[in-house]
C-alpha cells in the first residue's frame, strides 16, 4: 500500500540516510515529493511510502522513535470551486499535469494523486481560488 507522509527532521537527525534505512530495514520504497534540507537546520521531507502495510507501520513507528516528526496530514492544494472561473491559467505552470482542463468541457480538473504540492498554481491563479489546507 501507499502512504503520503510529511517528515520533520530535528537538526541532529538531518544527517540520517533515511531512505536507505527505510528500504533496507523495512523494504519500504520512499518517493520524495518535496524536500527542504540544509545543514544544521530543521529538515522537511514529503514522501510517498510504498510497501507492505505492517512494514509501513513499523517504519513509521521506528522513525518516530528516532525523534523524526511524522505527519500523515500532508499539505494539500485546495481549489475553491465557488471562486474558480475555469480560466485554466494554472494548468500551464503545473509541472505534473495534476491541473488540466477537460478536453471537452474546458472545466478545471484536479488529479490530486499527481500533485506534488509545488504551489506554483497558488500565485498564478488570477482570482485567488487556490490555497493549501495547512
Amino acid at each position, binding site marked *: 500500500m501507499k502512504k503520503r507522509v510529511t517528515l520533520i527532521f530535528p537538526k541532529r537527525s538531518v544527517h540520517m540516510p533515511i531512505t536507505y534505512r527505510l528500504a533496507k530495514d523495512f523494504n519500504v520504497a520512499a518517493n520524495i515529493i518535496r524536500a527542504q534540507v540544509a545543514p544544521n537546520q530543521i529538515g522537511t521531507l514529503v514522501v510517498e511510502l510504498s510497501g507492505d502495510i505492517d512494514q509501513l507501520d513499523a517504519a513509521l513507528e521506528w522513525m518516530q522513535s528516532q525523534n523524526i516528526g511524522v505527519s500523515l496530514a500532508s499539505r494539500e492544494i485546495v481549489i475553491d470551486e465557488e471562486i474558480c*472561473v475555469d480560466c*485554466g*491559467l494554472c494548468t*500551464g505552470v503545473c509541472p505534473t499535469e495534476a491541473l*488540466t482542463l477537460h478536453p471537452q468541457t474546458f472545466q478545471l480538473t484536479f488529479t490530486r494523486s499527481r500533485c506534488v504540492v509545488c504551489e506554483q498554481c497558488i500565485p*498564478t491563479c*488570477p482570482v485567488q481560488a487556490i490555497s493549501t489546507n495547512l
Partner: protein
Amino acid sequence: MRTIAEINEKIQRQQAIVWTAEELKARVGEMGIDRAAATVDVVTTGTFEPMESSGAILNLGQTDPPIKIRQCWIDGVPAYAGFGAVDLYLGATQVAEYANDAPELEDRENVSRSIVRGGGHVISDLIGGKSVQLRALGQPTDCYPRTSFETTITRETINQFYLFNPRNLYQNFVVGVNGGDRPLFTYLGPLQPRLGNAVYSNPGAISPLWNDPDLQTIGIGTRIFLGGGVGYIAWEGTQHFPLQKRLPNRTPIGPAATVALIGDAKQMDSQWVRGCYFKSYGPSLMLGVGVPLPILNAEAIAHCAVQDSDLVAPVVDFSIPRRVRPTFGLVSYAQLKSGRISIEGKPVRVAPLASIARSRQVAIELKQWIEAGEFLLTEPVAPLPIDRQFLAQDRWGAQISLEYDE
C-alpha cells in the same frame, strides 16, 4: 434573406431560431451554408476573459453642503474625479492604496490585502451588492464649500453606475512565451523561462469578433450581453486596428479590431464581472461579453462557420522588452486548445487565460434571453471604422509575418 426588423418580430413571437456559435459550427458542415442561413436567425457568441481597459462611471449625488471632489478613494482604490463635482471614473487596473478599514478587517494584513486588490475588485463588489467605503477630498469654492466627505456606498445609493470600457473584445491577441532565463510576470500571468509555458488569452472561434471579421453586422449601437446585463457597442475601441494582416477567411493574424462598450452596471451580475489580479503585474477585471449576430445573408453564416483550426495567433517572446517583440511564428487555436504547442521543435505546455467554459455559458445565456423574447437586436446607428491606420505607439505592430505552416 431577412432583416433585423423581421428577426425582432420573430423574437417577440418567441419563434426566432437562435444557435450559439458552437452549435452553428458543429452543424454547418453537414447541412451546408445555404440551408443553415435559411434556418438560423441569430448566432450568439461569447467570451469571458480579463479586459483591463474597463472602468465604471459613478455619480454620487451631492452632499449638503456640496463638494467638488478632486481626490477620491473607493475601498482604498483611487477614482478619477476630474469631471463635474461628484462624477467619478473607477478604472479596473487602478491599484488599491490602502485596504478597507472596516472593523471586521482589522485583523487582516492591511498591506498585503491592498496590493492584490484594485478597481476591478471594487467594481465587482459594487455589482455584487456589497457596500464599500468612499473617501473624498474637495476643493472649496463658492459653489462647493465642502472640503472632505466620507461615506459608504452601494449600487442602490448612487445615481448612475455604468461600465464604460474603452477597449474590450480584442479580435485576436497574442500567445505569450518567455525565451529568457528568468521568470516573467505579465498580464498573461507568469511566463516561465526557457519557453517553460505559453499563455493565450482569446477563447477562440466562439469569441464575438472572429465571427464577423469585417464588422459587417455589428456597429455603434449594437445591443449586447455585458456582464450579465444589457450593454451596447459605444464606439470603436482604443487601439482598434482593423487593418491588421488577415488570412483569406478575413480573420486577423494578430491583435486587430476592438470595441468600446457601455452598459448599466446596476443590472449586471458579479458572476460575469470579476476582479482579478496577476502576480507582480496588477489587478484587472474579468468580464463576460456576448454579441448576437443577425444572419441577414449566407455570407454571415460563412463567417460564423470558422473553426479553431482556421484561426491563428502569433507566439510572442515577452523576454524582449520592446514595443515590437520577436515572434516564433503563428499557431492555430486548435493547436492552442490541445494544451501543447511546438516552438522550435520543443513541446511547450500552453494554457488559456480566457475561461472557455464560461465563454460558452455567455453564448448560451444570451441565446436563452433571445429565445425567451427578452432581448431584441438593434440596427447599428453607424458602422465601426474598418480602415484605421496603426500609429507608432502600437504594441505589436503590423510587422507580424504572415508565414504560417500547418
